């Protein structure tokens, strides 16, 4: 006990004025505080730059046109609700931007693409992870090799295929348009790879146990494997859906009938303008309202499924 007391009262004298351990510790603490403060300042600055386009997208859709054209940072609060209502009603009543219709098309294409892709992925990942067959390794290597080939190689021929099937034409009907948008994106090797990894982690004992119970492979897949892999499946679903929602290039090639347009195409091709003194003038505030309407559904999805999305992308990066 006594020894301890001595040690607690021990003061190490360092040459120089007031240089005790206590002071040194104090100094370290202050320095560390300053260091952390600088780190936070930098992070906040970077975060500000990252968020700025999102903020400005929303802020611009809350402004009147003259205000946006003066480079204002904040929307003025005077009559703000009238301005918002005005911008957004004009945007969705623009005949080239029928929001409900566009949203419906984008949703249908996204959900059907994702669901069919998920089904095909589950079946093939199961075969690759748990079943034995000749040529498995070779086949899987071929699958993986296709991943490094740029999509443009496929797009050129897929375009001719869709055109020759009659799906791509100015008088295409709804079903033809949807099929042209969906079919080329049902197979996705990366998701097969991801799900196969998850399936392989499920212990084989479960498989043997289900065999003893007299379950078939099919039952085992849907009753055991799929529920156990639900988090990977959600990740795949969300990532796939986001991809489909944001795609521009392929829809732009195959949608020739504007009745079945999707959001990102209509967003870029619609010119929001007003007739003023007999001259058509673009209205950027309405354009920004349209970008908000296109982006916000995805941002909401991201906020709800943040963990799944970030985990999926992280795994995508680690595979390399």
């Amino acid at each position, binding site marked *: 006990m006594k020894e301890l007391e001595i040690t607690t009262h021990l003061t190490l004298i360092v040459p120089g004025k007031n240089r005790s351990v206590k002071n040194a510790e104090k100094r370290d603490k202050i320095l560390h505080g300053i260091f952390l403060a600088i*780190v*936070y300042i*930098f*992070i906040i600055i*970077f*975060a500000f730059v990252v968020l*700025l386009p*999102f903020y*400005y*997208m929303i802020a*611009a859709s809350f402004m009147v046109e003259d205000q*946006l054209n003066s*480079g204002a*940072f904040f929307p003025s609060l005077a009559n703000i609700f009238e301005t918002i209502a005005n911008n957004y009603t004009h945007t969705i009543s623009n005949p080239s931007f029928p929001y409900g219709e566009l949203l419906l098309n984008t949703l249908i294409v996204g959900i059907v693409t994702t669901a069919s892709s998920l*089904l*095909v992925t589950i*079946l*093939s990942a199961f075969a690759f992870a748990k*079943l*034995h*067959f000749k040529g498995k390794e070779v*086949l899987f290597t*071929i*699958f993986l090799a*296709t991943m*490094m*080939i*740029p*999509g*443009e*190689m496929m*797009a*050129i*021929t*897929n375009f*001719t*295929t869709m055109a020759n099937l009659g799906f791509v034409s100015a008088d295409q009907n709804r079903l033809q348009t949807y099929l042209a948008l969906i079919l*080329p994106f049902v*197979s996705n090797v990366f998701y097969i790879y991801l799900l196969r990894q998850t399936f392989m982690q499920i212990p084989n004992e479960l498989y043997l146990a289900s065999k003893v119970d007299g379950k078939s*492979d099919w039952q085992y897949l849907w009753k055991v494997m799929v529920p156990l892999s639900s988090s990977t499946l959600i990740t795949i679903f969300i990532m796939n859906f*986001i991809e489909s929602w*944001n795609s*521009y*290039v392929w829809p732009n*090639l195959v949608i020739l009938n504007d009745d079945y347009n999707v959001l*990102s195409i209509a*967003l*870029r091709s619609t010119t929001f303008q007003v007739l003023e003194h007999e001259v058509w003038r673009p209205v950027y505030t309405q354009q*920004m309202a349209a*970008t908000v309407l296109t982006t916000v559904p*995805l*941002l909401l999805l*991201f906020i709800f499924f943040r963990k799944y*999305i*970030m985990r999926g*992308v*992280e795994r995508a*990066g*680690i595979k*390399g």
Partner: protein
Amino acid sequence: MERKNNYKAWLYLAPILIFIFLFTIFPIINTFIISFLKNYNYATGANEGFTFENYGLILGITERIPGVSESKMLDFIRYALPNTLLITFVSVPISVILALVISILLNKIKVLHDLFQTIFFLPYVTNTIAVGMVFAIIFSNTGLFNNIFGLGNVNWVQEGLGSTWGKCMFVLCLYVIWTGLPFKILIFSSALHNIDQQYYDAARIDATPKWKTDLKIVLPLISPQILYITITSFITGFKEYNAIIGLFNRSYTINPNVHDLYTVVYYIYDQIQGTNGTRHLEYAAAGAVVLFVIILIFTLIQMKVAKKRVHY
């Protein structure tokens, strides 16, 4: 038993095999063939035989035959390829370094760490077209950027209205960096997170200054991720297209015959889309094969480097 499993496996694989054959394997082979066909007609499949001319024409080696209607084919070597290389070699190093700095800083904080991590990831899920349009508004002649920095009436993004190729490229590179950051930051952050605490402890016992710990210990430890990210960013950089459409739209010049903002992928899709109803799939295919070769080279480098450098 083996045998039974064998045919069952193929049943499970049947759907994916059908789709992957029709929409991936066959297209790869077919596009390769198209790139060697003279005057290919996509609707009928008619052509005038085997030729290297498509490559010669887009790469500017073969002289243009007089009388051939005005076509954009030469723009591949004139604009698409140089622009793509420029965008890639400017934006990739900057965004990798920036992402590294942000991830290292992010790794030092505990309070609000998850919030900032989420913020930095946000650009990943957004529509490139939509945010590109926001960038275009911010950089318009009366926009926020000029206003904040007091630059007056500079037009950055509308080539017909006073902007130049250089200014457009500047904004484009900024935007490409912005869109590329989230993925890199997430990968670097998780790599940093996985570094064993003992390395930091050892450095502290040796009284190594913090900046030295980051430079001499942390960076080498995550070098595999840095290499991986650098090379995959080069590959995605070569495929840049949506950012340009978002920022400049398809009709960015007054003169419709000037395409000085072409990238390789932009060129490919413009040739598929065609001018006045004539689609030139053979030039698009040749362009796609060139892109494929460039990407293949980078992938091979990555495989080679990864074998040498990965340490577990």
